[in-house]
């Protein structure tokens, strides 16, 4: 599996600048969450993503998706069991953490008092009881500051489901307002993280996934 495979079943513009060299698009499969949805979202864009927990395959990939749904300390435990906790922060290709994936890339999270991978220099906190928790549904992203958001307008709606949030910080590339303003996307070097679910966020979400492939 050295190349992205065009499935030919899509109406999107061809991803012409997206190459056939390297190790393709990999979704890290460490047992956390609904990775099928992410795989399907890329398939709708005409890209076959590989689900794997194999360290060599992850390191050789052109692009890496770090997903996650569920509880932080359990997810971190699963990462450690497969040795992936040591690998992710050493990757040089573009890496996109989604939802809990993004939170685990931060310094720490209040969920289960879990130490994160420390890629993003920020803490993850719990929403207070002044708002309904989890935040569930469509909210806007603003102050967009990355090529990840090429073609995305300010105040675009994204689908979010989460009880914990990353605080505003210097690595913030998008923010969202729910009780307080928080970082709904982060970037440092080749590492990207989004709190929302692009794979479930209609056309705008698809554009973000497409942008990630073209980074």
């Amino acid at each position, binding site marked *: 599996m050295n190349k992205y495979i065009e499935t030919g079943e899509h109406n999107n513009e061809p991803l012409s600048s997206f190459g056939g060299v390297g190790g393709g698009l990999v979704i890290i499969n460490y047992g956390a969450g*609904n990775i*099928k*949805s992410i795989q*399907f*979202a890329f*398939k*709708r864009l005409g890209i076959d993503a590989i689900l794997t927990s194999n360290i060599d395959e992850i390191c050789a990939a052109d692009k890496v998706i770090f997903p996650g*749904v*569920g*509880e932080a300390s359990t997810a971190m435990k699963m990462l450690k069991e497969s040795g992936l906790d040591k690998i992710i922060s050493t990757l040089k290709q573009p890496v996109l953490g989604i939802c809990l994936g993004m939170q685990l890339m931060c310094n720490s999270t209040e969920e289960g008092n879990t130490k994160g991978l420390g890629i993003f220099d920020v803490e993850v906190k719990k929403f207070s*009881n002044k708002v*309904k*928790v*989890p*935040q*569930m*549904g*469509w*909210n*806007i992203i603003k102050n967009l500051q990355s090529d990840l958001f090429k073609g995305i307008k300010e105040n675009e*709606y994204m*689908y979010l*489901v*989460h*009880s914990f949030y990353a605080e505003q910080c210097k690595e913030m590339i998008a923010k969202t*307002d*729910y009780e307080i303003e928080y970082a709904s996307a982060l970037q440092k070097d080749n590492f990207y993280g989004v709190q929302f*679910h692009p*794979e*479930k*966020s*209609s*056309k705008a*979400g*698809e554009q973000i996934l497409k942008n990630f492939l073209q980074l």
Partner: protein
Amino acid sequence: MLTKRIVPCLDIKNGRTVKGVNFVNLIDAGDPVVLAKQYAALGADELVFLDIAATLENRGTTLDMVLKVAEQVNIPFTVGGGISSVEHVDALLKCGADKVSINSSAVKRPDLINELSQKFGSQCVVVAIDAKQINEEWFVHLAGGTIPTDIKLFDWAKEVEERGAGEILFTSMNHDGTKTGFANEALSRLSSLVNIPIIASGGAGTVQHFVDTFKKGKADAALAASVFHFGEIPILELKQELKKRNIPVRI
């Protein structure tokens, strides 16, 4: 600002939608995938699939349908009907369902809520509650509303939240199918009692009913079936009207 969600509900039997859906230009109105894509394109915020003939025998058919919806639809969806085990939920989530909705099985064995939220996270556990108001008091009913219990709605809602439910889908049997509006008094009380999102269900007939359930009922989402399926209330027009009335919606 977090927007209020509009949620069409599709009844499924043997992997096909039933009760009829009346969209124009649809080749196959019984195909859940075709309908789901149509609703996503029309601006629905998420979808609920309710398996009304859920049996062990047709479980495979439903899983196959879930897989096909997940492959082709780019908004979140919930699957409900006849779900009573961790293994079944595992299979549904692996096929790409975002959330599952449990109802009678949660009343019969409340620990199921704890087990599901611990294993898969609260975010994917919707507890559906069907209740009927009898002499000023709301009582939970089972099996699609056919079996009454002595469990009180508000006690049960509090308990499901404590056990780890991520959301409550509340259907008022007094209002369901009447098209006279949602049970806003009970909804508003529910919404202030628990700190998880509440989906209002039962009674949608007009645009004003949606306005009322968000304003008076303090609902976080509103679910309806026939008014959407038969095009009585087009989703885009509904959302434009809600926006005019200062209710935050995604357009």
